[in-house]
């Protein structure tokens, strides 16, 4: 990303951003207190902050977080195994690739998460419905990125392998796979983000599972500060997950 330099140091800009965010929260608090914002629609930010310990202890946030994390992890493992395997298959068998690549790309643009009622019928109102939706909705980017990584391996590397008379299996494990690994991880990371989004979303929609269900339950009880606090908690989890996977990606793709 090309970026023209700011006249101000970056730290000043970051502080300004954080300052604006804090000022916005104070402004909302004041607007609610003077009655310009209805307190029965938007709770006091101070109440939201105060309700964090309450929802963590009373609503069992750690166990719900663990449940969502296990669902996301299961879906991620499944989509890594199946997605990478299918990507390798498409790379190896050119005919299958030509026949199905456009279909997979089309599926990537389809709102697959809307299939959740169908999964509810097949798997029941259980964690497997949530995991399978996360898995199916996140599969296309993993397949496509694996294929892109393998197909984009520099010809000189493959030629080096061939000159050493590597077997096809050795060529894959010693040359193609390591060269494609950064791209494959981009696909897996995208898949994991899609999986987490869909998992929390379906938990909310079917009122089952971990953090998504927590938001739904608190909203149904009209616990406004709790609902807002739970939403903030989900956002926090998403951001941490996003930043950690981004750091891993940068470590795998130095210079990007």
């Amino acid at each position: 990303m090309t970026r023209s330099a700011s006249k101000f140091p970056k730290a000043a800009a970051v502080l300004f951003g954080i300052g604006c965010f804090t000022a916005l929260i104070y402004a909302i608090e004041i607007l609610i207190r003077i009655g310009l914002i209805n307190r029965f629609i938007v709770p006091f930010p101070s109440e939201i902050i105060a309700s964090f310990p309450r929802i963590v202890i009373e609503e069992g946030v750690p166990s719900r977080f663990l449940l969502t994390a296990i669902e996301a992890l299961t879906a991620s493992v499944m989509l890594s195994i199946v997605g990478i395997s299918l990507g390798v298959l498409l790379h190896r068998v050119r005919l299958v690739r030509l026949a199905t690549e456009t279909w997979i790309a089309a599926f990537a643009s389809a709102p697959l998460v809307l299939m959740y009622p169908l999964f509810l019928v097949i798997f029941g109102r259980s964690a497997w419905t949530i995991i399978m939706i996360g898995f199916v909705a996140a599969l296309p980017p993993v397949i496509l990125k694996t294929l892109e990584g393998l197909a984009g391996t520099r010809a000189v590397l493959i030629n080096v392998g061939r000159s050493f008379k590597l077997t096809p299996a050795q060529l894959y494990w010693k040359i193609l796979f390591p060269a494609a690994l950064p791209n494959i991880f981009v696909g897996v990371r995208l898949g994991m983000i899609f999986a987490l989004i869909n998992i929390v979303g379906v938990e909310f929609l079917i009122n089952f599972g971990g953090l998504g269900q927590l938001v739904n339950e608190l909203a149904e009880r009209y616990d406004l500060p709790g609902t807002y606090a739970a939403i903030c908690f989900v956002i926090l989890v998403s951001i941490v997950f996003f930043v950690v996977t981004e750091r891993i990606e940068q470590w795998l793709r130095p210079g990007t």
Partner: protein
Amino acid sequence: MATTGNLTAAPLAARPVLGAVTLLRIAILIAIVAIWEAVAASGLLFRDVVPSLLVIGRQLLLILIHPDFPLHIDLGLGSSLVFDLKIPEFYRHLWVTVSEVATAMVIGGIAGLAVGLALGANPFLSDAFERFLYWLGPTPKIIFFPIMIMWFGVGPGSKVAMGTLSCFFPVALSVAAGMRQIEKVLIRVGKSFRANTWQMITKIYLPAMRQPIVNGARLGMGVAVIGTLLAETKLSNRGVGFLIINAYSTFDMPRMYALLIVLFVVAIGANALVARASRG
């Protein structure tokens, strides 16, 4: 010349491969249909969970062509221009969803464009605020639905708000990134002609950013469709999302499959159209 010979020979060599691809596609489709019908006939899954494709096809036709919803059109120019028609009810719901998504795209798109232009043009603002958008972009937007219901009610407003929220982030981030990639020489030309801010936006920035804007709109459309439809499945009495969840509630599986097929075809088709427009 030797190269000319190669060039003319290439299409002949490629022809059998294309034939094989088509054959394989047909074989895959036949295999899927055969497996589906075998599972439907075997009763391995619960009854009606996997209905026969013929039943789904019949339901698809019913949804698309069976006129079961009375439509009264009054053009307000006397009794000669009053029409009483019957249309398939599906189109009424499709119209609701399409109008919600379109409204969401207009609001979210314009807001995203404005924020993206501001962030892309000003490095200080970008350093200060872009990370918030970058972090909030991949969060599951559907969890904001309870707040949207409180703010905009249970009607179409909350669905439009969900679509808008979903659409805003990809458009804003794509426009901001696109703006930073505009060639500096174009900006210098604009400034040397003493163009004001509005002229810079309309004459330099927007024409130079056509591709990022279309890409952002394409991404935004995809997530706006998902956000709106998911909201409809959660709480609504109109729209395609409502039809799907209603079919699930009444265990009308053939209807649910048929609706999902129509929805996927519409979504994939719309995406392909935008992609083609961006290339054209």
